[in-house]
């Protein structure tokens, strides 16, 4: 699934090399090849609660090679044993698959710790030695991933040190990869700046941008629904679809993320990446294959065809939650959350209309909304269909008939709902909306460590379809920048009660188009 031919990296290349991996043998678990991971920011919250447990869970599931090495890099004066104790504590508290001494023992053999700061060249020399030792004794084969679980402003230093110590350069046949987490900048300019730093040191195809929210299941489910079926594609266009609503709602507030969240806001936090990715997957043309490059080409095409409303004031909305009772719990207003300045103009709700200038979608608005402290936690894509052009019923018969809809429920309760009209039993003739539900057996949850497990495994396997490339990141900032600029100048967030579906301005925004938001 890689774009490059040399050096061989990724599952496909390994398949060819290993006669035990018959492509038809789909039972055989895809275990990552010999490799190690160097983690920067290993004492941070994310590493402690998500990343280390995800690595442990992968080990538990037998998906990491026995030789797997994990090197922590940090300021603390720790021995390997201290680090092992730290990992043990993190894992026993947060692992998904349950703590087993035996699994930990397996992981334990490959744990190393290097003490140092990001500008300490000696520490990076030590890191080079440790990584070399893993290659020799554990058989990690010179394959190393660097996970930068650190603030973006530390990237230049770490990348510079990695380049200086030569750790970024693979030897024959091995690979070096770097993993960075969102946010990928806060606007186009900063995104480019960040990227320049990373791509100066690593090749573009070796940079893995982790967007844990958009897990593989969701992407694959949408692709399967659209492109594995004959039923939907014929109506998946402006001829039949009236409009599309993409919602990502959370019922919680910003919690402890004040430091990051304030000044960023919902649009930059989730619309730029998650919602625009969902939009791209919903609206894109059929890719010629599911190879990363082909998928990306289609997503980039549709993102570049997005047009903003002329009057941003009429067709976008922005809100901020106030305090009150939400679902039996009294909650604080955004302004009074810990660490938020009392005059903050950061939005916690954002909605916008986007149009797509293609033959398939001309005239079909895509309404995006996202926010905190909304009615319930839900992410979904709803295609709302046009009304039937003619109804051979008396108008009273169809008074309760709404528009047909296909709803892709992303989470929770992942599945598909189809809404259509059906006769009410026993009556003369009365048509009413009913829904037909399909639920996947397994739930897929937003912040479940499973998303990290898949992403880390895919990264080690060199399987990139899920990881956005810089071009996509830049395209989405190009869409969002004019809106956030306009908001900063002209639109203050409108207040909304916690536990509702956002401010009135959001409802008015749709009412102007003669439509209403679905209640998800």
């Amino acid at each position: 699934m890689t774009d490059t031919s040399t050096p061989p990296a990724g599952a496909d290349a390994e398949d060819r090399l290993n006669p035990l991996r018959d492509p038809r043998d789909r039972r055989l678990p895809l275990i990552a090849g010999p490799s190690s991971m160097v983690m920067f920011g290993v004492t941070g919250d994310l590493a402690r609660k998500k990343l280390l447990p995800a690595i442990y869970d992968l080990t538990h599931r037998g998906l990491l090679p026995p030789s797997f090495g994990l090197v922590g890099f940090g300021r603390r004066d720790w021995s390997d044993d201290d680090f092992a104790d730290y990992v043990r504590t993190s894992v026993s508290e947060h692992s998904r698959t349950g703590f087993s001494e035996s699994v930990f023992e397996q992981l334990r053999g490959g744990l190393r710790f290097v003490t140092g700061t990001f500008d300490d060249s000696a520490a990076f020399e030590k890191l080079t030695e440790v990584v070399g030792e893993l290659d020799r004794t554990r058989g990690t084969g010179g394959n190393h991933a660097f996970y930068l679980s650190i603030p973006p402003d530390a990237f230049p230093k770490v990348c510079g040190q990695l380049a200086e110590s030569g750790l970024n350069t693979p030897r024959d046949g091995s690979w070096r990869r770097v993993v960075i987490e969102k946010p990928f900048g806060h606007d186009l300019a900063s995104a480019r700046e960040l990227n320049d730093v990373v791509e100066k040191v690593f090749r573009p195809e070796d940079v893995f941008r982790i967007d844990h929210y958009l897990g593989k299941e969701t992407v694959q489910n949408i692709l399967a629904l659209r492109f594995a079926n004959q039923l939907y594609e014929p109506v998946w266009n402006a001829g039949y679809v009236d409009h599309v609503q993409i919602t990502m709602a959370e019922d919680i507030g910003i919690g402890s993320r004040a430091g990051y969240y304030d000044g960023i806001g919902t649009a930059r936090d989730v619309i730029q990446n998650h919602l625009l990715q969902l939009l791209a997957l919903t609206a894109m043309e059929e890719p010629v294959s599911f190879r990363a490059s082909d998928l990306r080409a289609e997503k980039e095409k549709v993102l570049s065809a997005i047009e903003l409303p002329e009057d941003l004031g009429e067709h976008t909305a922005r809100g901020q939650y106030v305090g009150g009772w939400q679902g039996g719990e009294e909650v604080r207003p955004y302004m009074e959350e810990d660490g938020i300045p009392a005059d903050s103009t950061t939005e916690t709700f954002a909605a916008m209309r986007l149009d797509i200038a293609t033959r398939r979608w001309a005239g079909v608005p895509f309404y995006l909304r996202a926010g905190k402290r909304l009615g319930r936690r839900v992410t979904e894509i709803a295609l709302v269909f046009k009304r039937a052009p003619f109804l051979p019923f008396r108008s009273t018969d169809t008074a309760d008939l709404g528009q047909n809809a296909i709803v892709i429920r992303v989470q929770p309760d992942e599945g598909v709902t189809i809404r259509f009209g059906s006769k009410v039993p026993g009556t003369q003739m009365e048509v009413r909306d009913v829904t037909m539900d399909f639920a996947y057996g397994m739930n897929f949850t937003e912040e479940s460590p499973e998303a990290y497990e898949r992403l880390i495994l895919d990264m080690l396997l060199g399987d990139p379809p899920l990881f956005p490339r810089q071009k996509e990141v830049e395209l989405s900032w190009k869409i969002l920048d004019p809106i956030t600029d306009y908001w900063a100048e002209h639109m203050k967030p409108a207040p909304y009660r916690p536990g509702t579906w956002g401010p009135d301005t959001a409802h008015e925004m749709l009412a102007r188009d003669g439509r209403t938001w679905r209640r998800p």
Partner: protein
Amino acid sequence: MITTLTDTTASAIDKTMIEMRETFGANTIGRVLTLIIIATGDIEEPLGAAISASHEHPARVLVVHADPDAETSGLDAEIRVGRDAGAGEIVILRARGDIMASLDTLVMALLLPDAPIVTWWPESAPSSPIHDVLGSMSQRRITDSAACSGPIATLKRLRRGYSHGDSDLAWSRLTRWRGLVASSYEVPPVSVPTKIEVAGSEENPSVVLMAAWLSRSLGVDAQIVDPSQDAPDYAGVHGVRLTREDGTIDLTRVSDEAIVLTLPTDDSGQHVTMPRRTLNELLAEELRRLDPDEVYGEVLATAFSGIDDMGTYASGKPAPTDSISADAEAVAADAAEATAAQLATALKARSSAHLVVTGGTVGTATAKALPAALSAAGVDVSRLHIWWGDERFVDPDSSDRNEVGVRDPLLEPLQEAGLPARNIHVMPSPADGMSLDDAAAWYGQQLDLSGGDEPFRTRGRAFFDVLLLGVGPDGHIASLFPEHSDQRSVSASAIAVTNSPKPPPERISLTWPVLNSARHVALLVAGEEKAEAVAAAHGEINPWPVPASAVRGLESTTWFLDTAAASRLDD
């Protein structure tokens, strides 16, 4: 919740399930497949696995728990939904008596429309899953050779009867092992091993499959070696050792939880957690993909070479003897007397005895002589089962049918003497509403059901006590004709024969392994026109040109001949 229905029918069960759905709102989540479990022993363990797997694969689970020997025929059912069924819904069908003869119609009304069907035999594997009435309508057929008596023999039979869509839990038990071996192979510098050893018992199907998988994939013969003396007693694979130019990669199970990996560069041993897989995990893995597991098929074929020589089934058994009498009448009398004596002996040792009858002049004459002979030998005919070696697929009352020939002289008197109708296993005719292929498969299944898991082996336990066979002038027996391609079909117990050189062209015949699973074989021949065939069949075992040479009983094979038929035998 659990609802129990006694003396019910499939359609009543279906109706009850719809009522339950309407009343309690249960079963609203989409079901993705129907899982049929054919249970012979305890049902709760497989059911537990099915409930656990239902969280990943919401399924309707039909458990067929049969008691074919029950006095009366009938059906009780238990429906479990909601908390008692995980994310699925469960119907337990307790079928008694003759209901087992039409298993397909028992489950038909309960199958989910259009959804794939998976059939699972937790213990007793059919000799050919694809030829099973339920197996033939399933996308996936799951057996567990390790849970059968004679695991390797079962696996061999499964190899003989393999068809795309078959799968065995001995194979899924290996998945994590295989993943680990595949990933160890990738330890740099990668090179193809010069020697491969798999430690474990040769009697364990997973060990055999592991060695076959490695041999097939790497092109190096993998040796099965005994685990070291002090190794704990694990079932399954103890270890795998790949010897390469740069040293040895060794994987050894050290506990039920873990494996130790030793590399050429590091002999301190890396600890790998690999707990033994539970039934729940195995089933969930099986249900994940319903497309054929071609690799399993190829590995199975690598593990056991196919039997190309149909004579294999007959070889290694006592040599035939001749019993020559004056004429056909005398031949029939001799054969009937010998048969009666053998059946009497069988019934002393076992609760029932199985006799295969045949048609033709001498065969019919022998049948006629049998009631008196049985009575004289004191045989309790109520414990007898009657089978046919072959039958013509024509109208049920046609005089072409072997069964019609023995109806009056044999079946009627025996029934009067107490032979239960259900013990008479007549081969189907077109009037039974089955195609020729289905009819053959159905008959094979009746044999499997009556004989359980053990019988149809080259050697070992027998199923039939006495097998009576006529011999054609061309040397054919049953409907296995000289140099006729259908003769070579051994994947099922009974096969359809088309283009028979002797009319009528469409027939059902038992196959070589089944015909060779009798204690005593009696070949009944009279008349000069058959002398040549008899002479040829007295030579070496050579089934392709001379089928009659290739059927042998485990204890005895007797040629009952008249002088004319024996005229060409060398002295």
